[in-house]
């Protein structure tokens, strides 16, 4: 006996009730549970769908899907990180390398001007406010999608969500960099300025990649990661 379409849908609901939020993992677990239930039916055809499901779910242990969900998130973090590194690397190859060097030189020169930290802070604040506004708009769209219970893939959520987290890290770090020392930057040794300018440049690039490049390429990255992305 095979599972009917509405039973498959019930399994999707079941995984959602057990905190499997994303469609990619839901799909894999639904297939697993289905196989298990069908196997049980081969041995005992009188077993009800609900009983068979409970039996199958028990095999996952007392924590249910928790371990699977956690590791799935961890694995996807690793993949997101790899994607990020892949795009950041582009900025260290020609032609983008020229822009990277220009940003670096700009930071490096700015840091040597007296009271440069005020200028930098002002600039960052401006960008941060603009970015927060964009994040806010995007979050509203995502929430609407989730409320409608559309199929959301983990990487898809991360391209939106991790980006927010990463932007925050960038701003905090840039802020710290500017406030790192009480003394004016222009009084610091040139090696320090060199290092600070390099870190600031890297943060800017990483921010740009997570906030603009990766979301723009989302479709492509999702198809690459999930063969089923085009199917659903």
């Amino acid at each position: 006996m095979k599972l009917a379409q509405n039973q498959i849908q019930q399994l999707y609901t079941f995984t959602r009730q057990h905190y499997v939020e994303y469609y990619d993992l839901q799909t894999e677990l639904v297939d697993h549970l289905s196989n298990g239930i069908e196997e049980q039916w081969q041995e005992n055809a009188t077993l009800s769908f609900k009983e068979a499901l409970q039996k199958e779910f028990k095999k996952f242990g007392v924590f249910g899907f928790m371990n699977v969900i956690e590791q799935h998130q961890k694995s996807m973090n690793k993949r997101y990180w790899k994607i990020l590194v892949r795009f950041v690397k582009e900025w260290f190859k020609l032609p983008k390398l020229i822009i990277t060097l220009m940003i670096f030189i700009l930071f490096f020169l700015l840091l040597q001007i007296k009271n440069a930290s005020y200028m930098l802070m002002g600039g960052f604040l401006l960008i941060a406010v603009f970015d927060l506004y964009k994040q806010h708009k995007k979050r509203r769209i995502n929430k609407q999608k989730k409320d409608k219970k559309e199929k959301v893939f983990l990487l898809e959520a991360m391209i939106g969500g991790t980006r927010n987290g990463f932007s925050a890290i960038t701003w905090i770090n840039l802020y710290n960099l500017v406030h790192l020392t009480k003394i004016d930057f222009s009084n610091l040794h040139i090696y320090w300025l060199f290092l600070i300018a390099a870190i600031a440049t890297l943060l800017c690039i990483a921010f740009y990649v997570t906030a603009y490049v990766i979301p723009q390429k989302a479709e492509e990255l999702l198809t690459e990661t999930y063969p089923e992305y085009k199917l659903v």
Partner: protein
Amino acid sequence: MGNSKLYKGSLNTIILKLLEEQGKMYGYEITQKVKELTKGELKITEGALYPALHKLEAEGLLDVEVAKVDNRLRKYYKLTEAGEKETVNRLAELEEFIRSMQNLVNPNWSIE
């Protein structure tokens, strides 16, 4: 059921070896195949299998394929090129381990 703790460290190697032999497999199939091969001695728990598969996939050792089977989607795993190389390494490591254990437990017995 045997002492699953002893098997735990070798789970990844078992998965890689199975995929090397079978080409492509899906999660449930792997649990069943292991049960069949070890005559029920080793049952891979569902809670351990999927995390292991996802980890190997993130490491670039496995690739995935999705097919529609019986009105649902099924995710198949298969080895990547890097995965094939890694399988050889891990199997060699495991054999070395078995040999060392043999020597420790029963010095007079040999695997050859």
